[in-house]
């Protein structure tokens, strides 16, 4: 297998842009990534694109406006992990030698999607969905367990949202750049006890893209190449094999595989971007990623270690909570943020001297599985 490098990253604005088509959002991100990589779009040999809602040939729709046609384009869907899946698919094609340079794009227009203004619904025939299961409900039940098993308090969950918004306030691309207080988060409308509105990610339109290449392709550009030291993607296990809601076995498995692939451990990480669609879940990811021993995630949060300036900053971008969550874009976007962090170009939210970063994404809830998909990428310079 060949080494694979991130050559360029790009992101559209994140927010509510109902007037903006998928093609336009995707073009903004793809064009930025291609320019960042210092290549001509004509050099792209393959593209993987992801979108959850809805429509066909997303990649072709985006790339045609950049003068790119005829190449192999694959469109993938894996719920919120769709973008990570696109990146990993391209990674594998480059590692295997099928292509030297390509682009992965994630794009979502939530405001024009068929579920605009609604919760992300389970499949129509999903038993739990028929009984009232939704994303916020599932994460609320997980939060309830965290309060029982970990001694977490609603204030802890609120603090995670406060941290995300503190970080997002430093990111010019964030959908919500307003700093919040714990009291404001707790005082916002209750969604599913203990999760309040300001502990939920917003609906977001946006896109992100990365250009990946082989060592030879990297050598042809002036871009600072960031090596993908690990790329993993796994699906969930049956709930009858998962002990509790306070760990997502698939997330822990994706991380363990990534650490093995990269030959490093969680103690070697400088910065992390992860799935925080709901504030409370961040605690679960701390433990599943091995940032602290089981049962100690609340202590890690309270110590300030995961805030900017701490030992291992988590979601310096503002995360899904503040930056926003255009579903299929988020899995690509976390890799954009880690790349920017490792290149030292994150301005006020820069983690000083970051050399090793981890981008995680999670996708999908379905009856019978602990979750749909989990992906981890480890990047190094």
């Amino acid at each position, binding site marked *: 297998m060949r080494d694979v490098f991130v050559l360029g990253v790009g992101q559209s604005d994140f927010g509510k842009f109902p007037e903006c088509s998928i093609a336009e959002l995707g073009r903004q991100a793809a064009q930025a990534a291609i320019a960042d990589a210092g290549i001509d779009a004509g050099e792209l040999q393959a593209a993987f694109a992801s979108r959850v809602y809805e429509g066909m040939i997303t990649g072709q729709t985006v790339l045609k406006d950049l003068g790119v046609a005829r190449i192999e384009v694959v469109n993938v869907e894996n719920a919120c992990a769709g973008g990570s899946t696109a990146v990993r698919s391209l990674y594998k094609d480059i590692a295997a030698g099928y292509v030297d340079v390509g682009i992965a794009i994630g794009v979502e227009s939530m405001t024009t999607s068929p579920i605009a203004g609604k919760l992300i619904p389970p499949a129509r025939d999903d038993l*739990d969905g028929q009984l009232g299961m939704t994303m916020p409900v599932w994460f609320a*039940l997980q939060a*309830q367990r965290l309060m029982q098993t970990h001694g977490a308090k609603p204030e802890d969950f609120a603090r995670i949202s406060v941290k995300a918004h503190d970080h997002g306030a430093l990111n010019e691309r964030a959908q919500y750049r307003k700093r919040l207080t714990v009291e404001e988060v707790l005082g916002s*409308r209750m969604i599913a006890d203990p999760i309040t509105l300001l502990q939920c990610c917003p609906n977001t339109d946006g896109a992100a893209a990365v250009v990946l290449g082989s060592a030879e392709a990297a050598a042809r550009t002036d871009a600072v190449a960031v090596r993908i030291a690990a790329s993993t993607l796994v699906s969930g296990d049956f709930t009858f094999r998962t002990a509790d809601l306070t760990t997502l076995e698939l997330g822990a498995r994706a991380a363990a595989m990534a650490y093995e692939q990269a030959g490093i451990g969680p103690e070697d990480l400088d910065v992390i971007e992860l799935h925080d669609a709901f504030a409370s879940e961040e605690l679960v990811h701390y433990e599943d990623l091995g940032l602290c021993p089981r049962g100690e995630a609340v202590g890690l949060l309270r110590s300030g270690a995961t805030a900017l300036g701490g030992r291992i900053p988590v979601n310096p971008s503002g995360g899904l909570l503040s930056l926003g969550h255009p579903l299929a874009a988020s899995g690509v976007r976390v890799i954009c943020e880690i790349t920017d962090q490792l290149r030292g170009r994150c301005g006020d939210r820069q983690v000083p001297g970051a050399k090793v970063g981890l981008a995680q994404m999670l996708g999908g809830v379905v*009856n019978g599985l602990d979750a749909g998909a989990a992906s981890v990428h480890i990047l190094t310079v």
Partner: protein
Amino acid sequence: MTEAVPLRPDLFRETPEGPTLLAVRCKSCGQVVFPVRDLCLACRSGELTMIELGSDGELLCATTVHMPTQATRPGDAVGYVIMPPGVRVFTQIDKRGDALPEPGTRMKLRIAPLRTDGDTEVLAYRFAPAEEVTADA
């Protein structure tokens, strides 16, 4: 006249001892899986026995849902109940007034209308704190 139909077949049934949820146990590996299916998800054997999970469980956790969902109104409660032999079941929950039952509460299965489709009442399972079901009976 209103017809009552279960949400899906082989989900629950009435017995002389009260309602029971239905599951399958694999004849090959012993895995119990709810809801009923025709393939063991653990070992993929097709040799399965339908079993009754009974009507007793223990509340793992619950939440009050404050926005409408496909099946609940604001203020309704849902949660997970653990039934012997350790099957975790997502379910709607009867509250005690405005209060959620505490984790660890002994829960009792009951069959109740989930929704009405035209003239058809769709029945599903839900759980209530055990002492309340006993008191009602």
